[in-house]
């Protein structure tokens, strides 16, 4: 297990480095000048130059890049340009909310996707399989801004059982927090649940057609036990890898869902920072996203190796 981690680590670090260069470069290439935004439309060239000098924008690009990375490594993210306050504080505030939303969505995706996948692979009746198929297709086809509005309409407006938006932190008030979390998490989870369900169904169906399932059947092991103890462990490893990729999608999708449900997370922050050319905040956010993604991949590789002993060579 440690050998695997050591083998995967260099490429993970390389991805992080490449991503940091890319993020830094792209932000310098997009039109729009943070100094101009900060100084206001009426500022003269001297004011603009003064603002630039204060922000360090007149330094050569490599120096700016090194300043940024050095700050990251020492934990000093510096102040935000436009939004105000320390970048680190802004991100920490949003991080809790987004983590809560993403984990909630992940839980939903696994529960719904798992149920649909197992049902689809084992159902004998054609109409059950058809129903599973239609459900996953619908969940895949409907984008979050449609499903989100529909969910709000149904649960918040018509039934009035759940709040339409906003957030109460789960840790401070669990009972209330769950009510606020349910709709956005479900909305965010639906496409991932559909992908997971489809994939699990396929993987499980193939596992059930394996020779070793025939061996187990011939040995007199009950079908239910074969499903849970023999076929599922065999079907899971590739699904875990997919789950890792889906987690990345959830983080990306959170931007949209947070806007729909007025969820004060990183998505909201990213939107604000982008519109107002707040370089430090955007840079740090994007890099954080990449870092989380890399970490999740690493984690799913480790879980994959845990589940499939053939990968686990010393």
């Amino acid at each position, binding site marked *: 297990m440690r*050998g695997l981690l050591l083998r995967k680590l260099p490429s993970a670090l390389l991805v992080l480095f490449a991503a940091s260069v890319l993020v830094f470069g792209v932000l310098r290439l997009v039109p729009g000048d943070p100094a101009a935004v900060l100084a206001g439309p009426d500022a003269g060239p001297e004011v603009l130059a003064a603002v630039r000098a204060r922000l360090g924008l007149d330094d050569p690009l490599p120096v700016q890049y090194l300043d940024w990375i050095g700050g990251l490594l020492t934990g000093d993210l510096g102040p935000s340009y436009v939004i105000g306050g320390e970048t680190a504080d802004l991100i920490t505030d949003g991080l809790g909310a987004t983590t809560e939303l993403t984990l909630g969505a992940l839980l939903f995706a696994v529960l719904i996707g798992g149920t649909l996948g197992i049902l689809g692979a084992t159902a004998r009746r054609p109409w059950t399989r058809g129903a599973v198929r239609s459900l996953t297709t619908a969940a895949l086809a409907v984008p979050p801004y449609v499903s989100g509005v529909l969910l709000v309409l149904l649960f918040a407006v018509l039934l009035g059982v759940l709040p339409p938006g906003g957030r109460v932190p789960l840790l401070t008030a669990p009972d209330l927090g769950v009510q606020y979390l349910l709709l956005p998490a479900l909305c965010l989870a639906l496409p991932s649940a559909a992908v997971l369900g489809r994939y699990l169904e396929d993987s499980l169906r193939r596992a059930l057609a*394996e*020779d*070793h399932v*025939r*061996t*187990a*059947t*011939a*040995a*007199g*092991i*009950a079908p239910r*036990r074969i499903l849970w*103890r*023999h076929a599922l*462990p*065999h079907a899971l*490893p590739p699904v875990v890898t997919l789950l890792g990729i889906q987690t990345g999608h959830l983080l990306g999708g959170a931007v949209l869902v947070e806007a729909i449900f007025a969820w004060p997370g990183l998505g909201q922050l990213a939107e604000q920072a982008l519109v107002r050319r707040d370089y430090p905040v955007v840079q740090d956010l994007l890099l954080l996203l990449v870092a989380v993604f890399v970490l999740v991949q690493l984690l799913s590789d480790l879980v994959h190796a845990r*589940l*499939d*002993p*053939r990968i686990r*060579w*010393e």
Partner: protein
Amino acid sequence: MTTPLLDVRDLDVTFTTPDGPGLRAVRGVSFTLRRGETLAVVGESGSGKSTTALALLRMLPGTGRITGGSVRLDGTELTTAPEDELRAVRGTRIGMVFQDPMTALNPVLTIGRQLDEVLRAHGGRDRAARRARALELLSLVGIPDPARRVDDHPHRFSGGQRQRVLIALALAGEPDVLVADEPTTALDATVQDQILTLLGDLTRTTGTALLLITHNLGVVARTCDRVLVMYGGTVVEDGPTAEVLARPRHPYTAGLLAAVPRLSTPSGTRLTGIPGTPPDLSLPLAGCAFAARCALAEDRCRTAAPPLTALATAAGPVRAACHPAAERSVPLPPPPPPVRAERPAPGPVVLAAEELRKTYRGRGRHRHTALDGVSLTLRAGETLGIVGESGSGKSTLARILAHADPADAGRILLDGQDVTRPGRTALHAVRRRVQMVFQDPYASLDPRMTAGDIVAEPLRAFGIGTPADRPARVAALLRTVGLDPAAADRLPRAFSGGQRQRIGIARALAPEPAVLLCDEPVSALDVSVQAQITGLLTDLQRDLGLALVFIAHDLAVVRQVSHRIAVLHDGRIVEEGDADEICERPRAAYTRALLAAVPEPVPAARAEEFAA
């Protein structure tokens, strides 16, 4: 006589197909198995032998269903038993061992877990007791140091050891019948020998009856008291093994026996085959399933299905389903004497390899030396047989000679020129001169290309001929390999295994090569069809002066088709020389072990009688 343990009567199995009446894979099969008896069910692909075995436990794949007849175990009907009753039979009354030990074990569970699951299903409550029993079972089937190996996953075991574990799984419920479906087909000859010995010992010591499904008559002769021969879903003959194999009554049994390559047959002898192809099971059967391929068939054989008629012999009753045989009390005449193939003397050296080395890198510091200094020469019009077990490096050698992989060291000479590391144009020229025929005629043809396109592809790739004259060239090539040119627009799935291998050979011949590398060209084919392909290769060699490298694990086939044999072991040639010389006077200990492991189809005592 006591009532039989297993009584199968008039069993019918049909696979429903989306169009048409369905495939009748098993047609009226009847047999009995007594307690402690060993019965072999032998037949070629499509004979219905495996389907019969799976039908016993109602484990038919896909759309297969039992459509008639009965299966009684100690008087209990199994074909209509409810599913949970059947589950109680599986494992505890009838245990099964399947063909491919590489896939029949769950790769993500330790073998201890898998044994534990079975023991648990059979009511083992106490975890510690189950583990003790698992260790006991592993040592019973000859896994060394079970206490240390029990928590390993299947990929840590060799093929032979996995098959032992599978046997342990099947025996865990102490069944009365052990059904083994081709248990040794995927294994090397020396390992096959060990597994057969194990099965024999186990049935003797535990009193378990054995139903062995196989296509290999040598395995039958070595393991079973009684044999049941199947063809086209029907039983054609059944009786004591020694009697049936020495004095076959049914022409199919006789033909099958004659088709098995014998180690004793000298080099340059043509293999004997059975002409024609097996019957189409989707068609209704009017008479005898074998009539279309039978030299002795009469008019009634094509109209009325012959019943299984019992015949008393000294060794016990023999049943045969053959009209003429029912009237003849004497066995069939012996097969025609072997025909010598005319082989012109080999010409100059076309291909030579000097001290080839190849090492594959594994994870970390792991290295595997696949070839360790292999040298060989090949003359025009000559066949060099390369024999070795899995892992000996024979496929690596083929890949390097075909320039599919580069060698780490050594030289390859083609027509005297060094082509070890050819440039782009030189490689193109080498590829034209050296072509390959692959083992699996199912996987080596693109299922979406027609036979004609497959054969035309190398013509296009090497720019041979013009687009206008290529169809004529393809037709000529198909005719050369004995196929009807009219079949050019059909897809591979419309052809039988033997016909597909012919397409593969036509493709290899298209660029007019000087050397044909054949990697196990007949091992995926039935014995009765093998002869057609080896015969074709011999004819092509005579007519075109081809140099052949014939790689195989079956020494008997290799001896017959090869001029010279090289025995490969652990990446080295341990012995090389004249084909007959190697088989009759082997010098290397490894060659002797290989020769000793090949099971002969006719019991030794009867062999001379049969040959006379």
